[in-house]
């Protein structure tokens, strides 16, 4: 097993444990909202998730536009599936299924 890969995983895993457990273990009373760091941390999540969505979808649009219809269907169905129950899991599965079906319809030769 690649030692660099193990080191990367251990560092990332330790940080993940720290991010998830330490704020609970070190909590002393109620957190004070409104601070500079609190604002930065609160914005990190939305910024990171928005970035990752764009970064994962952008290669289908740029530099060459590939599979625009499956992408549009996948996005649309993900949003529509999310709305009724606000379930991340259901929306993810429905969006992926819609993308796969649209891909099969757009590329019948590949799908058979």
């Amino acid at each position: 097993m690649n030692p660099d890969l193990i080191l990367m995983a251990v560092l990332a895993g330790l940080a993940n444990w720290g991010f998830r457990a330490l704020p609970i273990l070190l909590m002393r009373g109620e957190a004070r909202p409104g601070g500079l760091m609190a604002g930065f941390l609160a914005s990190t999540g939305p910024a990171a998730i928005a970035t990752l969505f764009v970064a994962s979808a952008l290669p289908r649009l740029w530099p060459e536009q590939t599979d625009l219809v499956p992408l549009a269907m996948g996005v649309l169905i993900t949003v529509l599936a999310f709305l009724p129950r606000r379930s991340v899991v259901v929306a993810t599965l429905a969006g992926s299924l819609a993308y796969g079906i649209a891909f099969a319809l757009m590329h019948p030769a590949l799908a058979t």
Partner: protein
Amino acid sequence: MSEKTASFRGGLLAALPIVMGYFPIAFSFGVAATRAGLGQAEAVMLSLVIYAGASQFLALSLVAGGAPVLVAAFTLIAMNVRHVLYGPALMKEAGQDGSRRYAWAWAWGLTDEVFGQALGALARGQRFSEGYMFGLGLAAYISWVAGTAVGAFAGGGALDGWPAVSAGLDFMLSALFLALLLSILSRAALPAIVIAVVATVLGTVFWSGTVGILAGMICGALAGMAGGLLGGLFRGRG
């Protein structure tokens, strides 16, 4: 709804939707890992040790791109900073029941989905219990690791004969991020989201994908912080 303390078994049952969602995504990760040239044991090790979906997919890109190990580790760490907010938010919702004696163990499983499920249960009137958190987190973790193992052992060529299935699995990550984005969408988060999207596109188009990701996260977080400060100033004057 009457208030009820949930058990370990209750947590296992409540995790069912997460288990169903995690398994195919983890399968997709296992396949992607072997496609990227990793061994089966290496793929499973990443899921066991990192246990953060988006980070793991990014790890594959970084490893394949030859990023230095510390740069790669820092990038993965930066991606999960948002998790620091989950524990305090959950404890606040738990109120007097918020026991944290074994938090050092169950908090390992506090992923986006587990946090969302636990918070939702508390919001619906269920009382907090560490046993429930163990059940919820353990089922999700096992599903993630098992899905990775099955995907890795199926191998990178497992889906060669199934291009539509492969395309759907490839899109699963985008769908997951979009669904997570929808789940946290709020007026307060809009500045961070808009600036992150613009910075990611500009960084990717004019420089590279890596620059786009870093630019999006940093500019978005700074924009959100600035937006919060400005909002606070205006409220203070008003």
